[in-house]
Each structure stands twice: as C-alpha cells, then as structure tokens.
C-alpha cells in the first residue's frame, strides 16, 4: 500500500491526531500528534491490510537550530577545542525534539514513516514498547542520548551511558564534559609543538638542503 493511502487511513481513524503528510523528498513522512502515537502504532500493527509487524528503526531527533532552508547552515555542535577543553556557547537550545518511526510489514511488504515532535521543555510521549518489543531498547536509547521520556515504558533507564551521566549527548546544545566523576577527560596534550617559535629569518637565506627523513 502506498504511504499516502496509509496516512489517509490514519486520518480517517484519528482525525486531528494526524497532523500532516510530507510527500516530496526522498522519503514521504507522516506527522503524528505525540499523544496519539501509541494508539496509532497499535492501529498500524493490528489493522488488516496494514499489519506493520516490524519496527525497523526508532530515532530520537533534536531539531535545535535546524536550517529550514536547506542551505546547510544549522548550528554547529559543540566539541572540544584544540587544547582539549570543552567548547561552550551562550546559545540556549531551542526547537523541538522529535522521534521518527520507520515501520515495515513482512506480510504486506510496505513501509511507513511517521514522525512526532514534542516540545523541548516537556519531551514526553507515550511508549510504543507495548506494540513492538523492539522499541524497548530503541526508546531507551532515545531517552539516553536525546532525553525524550517515554510514558509507559517498562524499563526506562539509560542504556549506553552510565546511570549517573549528565545531559544527553545527541542534543545540539550538549556541552562535552571535562570530567566524569573523578576522572578528568581532557587527557594529555600530546600534540604540543616541541620546537619553540622562532623569529622569521629576515634575510631569507637558504635553509639546509633537504635530507631524507
């Protein structure tokens, strides 16, 4: 079944829960209201003719500073500077968080993509772990790395990072830590120039002939 047709079925069923459908681009995508996502998932799985029995992928997204014009001008993420210290910025994170669901049906052999957006201040949406068990770990990952809370998840803990980790690395405004617990993360600067800077030679005389390294 075409994605458009699937989306229309969703509109029929949920009405305002289906927010829109983006048809152009390499992958059509349906926007779903966050409160309706678990119901929509259950519907997509169980409705005859849809039968989405596999959740291929569940991605946590952070739309902070996304360049809407497609010019590649999104905000730069923060890393470490040359000296190994974390970069900081005054910018406050804005923009929604989101989740993308990619579904596949082994019986019907069709795919469907849906996305939800949740506000940054209250990133909470219902869990689909009860619909597809595979969502369990994917949602834990999204919780861990993006910081989205899934209501009704049976075991929502951090999965890849430590329980005590602060912040969510995949957020665009995440500042890299300079220490973790008692462990400093900057390390030794091995790239130090061993040769002190010298004055440029004003005469421009020829240096020694190049030798084999």
């Amino acid at each position, binding site marked *: 079944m075409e994605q458009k047709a699937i989306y229309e079925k969703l509109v029929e069923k949920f009405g305002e829960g289906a927010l829109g459908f983006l048809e152009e681009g*390499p*992958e059509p995508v349906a926007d779903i209201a966050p409160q309706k996502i678990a119901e929509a998932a259950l519907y997509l799985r169980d409705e005859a003719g849809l039968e989405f*029995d596999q959740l291929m992928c569940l991605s946590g*997204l952070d739309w902070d500073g996304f*360049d809407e014009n497609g*010019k590649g001008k999104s905000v730069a*993420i923060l890393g470490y500077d040359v000296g190994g210290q974390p970069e900081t910025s005054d910018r406050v994170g804005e923009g929604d968080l989101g989740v993308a669901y990619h579904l596949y049906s082994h019986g019907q052999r069709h795919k469907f993509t849906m996305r939800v957006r949740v506000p940054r201040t209250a990133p909470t949406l219902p869990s689909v772990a009860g619909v597809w068990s595979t969502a369990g770990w994917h949602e834990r990952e999204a919780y861990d790395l993006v910081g989205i809370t899934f209501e009704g998840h049976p075991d929502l803990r951090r999965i890849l990072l430590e329980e005590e980790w602060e912040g969510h690395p995949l957020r665009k405004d995440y500042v890299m830590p300079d220490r973790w617990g008692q462990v400093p993360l900057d390390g030794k600067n091995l790239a130090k120039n061993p040769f002190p800077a010298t004055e440029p030679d004003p005469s421009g005389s020829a240096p020694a002939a190049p030798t084999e390294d």
Partner: protein
Amino acid sequence: MANQETKMNSGWADQDHVPGIKSELMELNMGPQHPATHGVLRLLLETDGEIVHKCTPVLGYLHRCAEKIAEGINYKQFVLYTDRFDYLAPVCCNHAYVTAVEKLMDVEVPERAEHLRVITAELSRIASHLIALATFGLDMGAWTPLLYCFREREAILDLLERIAGGRMLYNFFVPGGVRYDVPDEKWTADVLEFVTMLETKKVKDYNQLLSYNKIFIERLADVGVISQQDAFDYGSTGPVLRGSGVSFDCRKDDPYSVYPKFDFEVPVGRGEMGTVGDCWDRYMVRVREIEQSCRIIRQAVDTMPGGEVHAIGLTKPVKLPAGAAYSRTESSKGELGHYIISDGGQMPFRNKVRSPSFCNLQIIEKIGVGQMVSDLVAFIGSLDIVLGEIDR
C-alpha cells in the same frame, strides 16, 4: 522467590521447588570480561543452579557516540567510522552508509563500482560468517574449527588488502562509487579461485567437523528457539530472522545496489535437527549463506563491466540536498539501516544508525529466561553479535 511467575519456555525450568525449602536466586555477573560474551557485553543473570531466571544485558562499554561524531564531520569522512561499527564485516557497513547517502544525493553510481561493491561486501560477509562459525564453535568447546575458519578468513583479508589497502578496516567505499579499481587482472581470478576452494572443500570440512557433529547438534537443537512471532516482535533481522524460518533478505526483498541482477537463494531455518528457529538453524543459515555469497561473487565477477569506479572525484566534497531518508541494507548480521537527515550541507544534521546486533540482542531478555547457563552461551553465540555495532 520473586521470579516464580517468570515465564519459562524451556523444559528445564518447570521443575517445582520443594515446598517449605527457601532458596534464593544467585546473581551472576557474566561479563564484560567473559570469554563467551563476544567482546564487552555484560549480562546480569539471576540463576537457580544452572538455570537462568532473569537476564539483563548491560551495554555501553564500547560506546563512542558515533552518531554525534557523524554530525561533526562530513559525509566522506564518516565512511571510515562505519568501518568501526561491525569490524568483522566493515565493507557491509560501508555499503549501508553509502547507500543511505546516495539515496539522498541521487547520484548515478557506475556499474563497475556497484559490482566491486557487491564483490567486496560479499567477501566481507563471508569473512564475518566465518568468524561467526569459528567463535560459535569455540563457545561450544571446539577449538579447531576456530583456527580453520581464521585461516580462510585470512585469505579474504589478503584479497581485500590487495584491493583496498587495509586488512581489517578498509574505508573502501565513497559516496558515488568505490575508492579504487581492481589492482590487477589477477585479482578477479584469485577471487574466483578462493570462492571455488571455499565452496568445494572448506565448507564441507566445516560441516563434517562441526555442523553435523552429534555433540554439536545435541548442544544446539531445540535450544534458544525464537519463534517467527518473537522474531518480528523484537525486530530480529538477518540470519536470526531467517533461522526462524522467515525468508526475508534485504538484498532480495528490498533491493539495493545491483543485487537484483544476481541469482541466489535465501537460506532459511527448516528445523532439520529440532525446532525451527533453534540455535542450530541460525548456525546453519550462516553456513549456507557462505555458499550463496560465493554464488553472488562468481556472478558479479563474471558480469563485471568496465568503466569508471567513482562518479564523484575522490577529492571532491559531497554535498547532500536537504531531506531525510532511511535506507537499509543487509549486512552480515542483519538489517543495517541509516536514517540521515540532511540540512543541505556537507555534514549530516542527524545520522541515526540502526544496527542489527542491537535489535537482535534484545530478544535475549525473553529467550534467555529458563535456559541453562551453557545454553545461554550457545544462544549468544548463535545471535552473532558484535559489540562495536551495539554500542556504536
């Protein structure tokens, strides 16, 4: 006994406890340094004697947050980070990533490059499956197949070294093609020779030495049975899904690259030694996939056209138009997908990696319960996980 109600699905756990005798479950920490956890997987087990009552995987010992790294470097540079996901089949990971990038980029990949991609990816898949057999045998206590499989893998590494320059991490693909053409005419001949050798002699040896060994069968038949329903529910893919009797292979059912051109079969578990979906089926699917990969390689070599090998110059920057797409390929472990959101620049806005081992491993929480510790080892081995891919 908090876990009395825990669902048991193996004959071992249905023994009733003698009423009146209080016993506690023993917590057992399996890993991260354990020979059978294939890297740094850590399992928190609650056991009653030999029987596992609860199994909680703890991940993240290899976490590098490659998805964050991807947001900071350009598309061409990230190819070599994909090598590090599944370091046993890096070419397959390259393939998944460049396929995703090309889906957004809409570039015409030269035919010759596609053939080279298929050949190297299948070689890499064979290498990965060889390791899977080898380490699985090792988990089962058979040392010798390990060394035999590594011997054949070494031949693959030599072939890949000749074309790509690396022995383990190749960085061979670029968006829009592959990095280099074949080094010389002899290379393709050597590939064919190796494939023939593997098909006619070595796979037979493995089968006799390991697959059809009675002890090996007894260890694996009816152990860790994943039903078709569970496999779908937990998003299992690759040999794990096919071991459960589902004929699904991205190369055939969601085709990419030039796979539709080639004639090959998708081996599925048939429950020859026990139930459909047991460890032996998953193991045997891999052995048979080696043979099918050999077939694909032979066809790809035979029909390889001439011409360029990359559509975009190696030094040219890759720029993607804005958009988002999920693309999946069949890596040796299963469905390896990349969800790339591009904002129109040289770097992805978001690159989510859906790694097969991550999804395949999750089922251990369900299937691991009620098994013996020895069977759990067999089960992990039959899932063929790679921690570099799980933790990313």
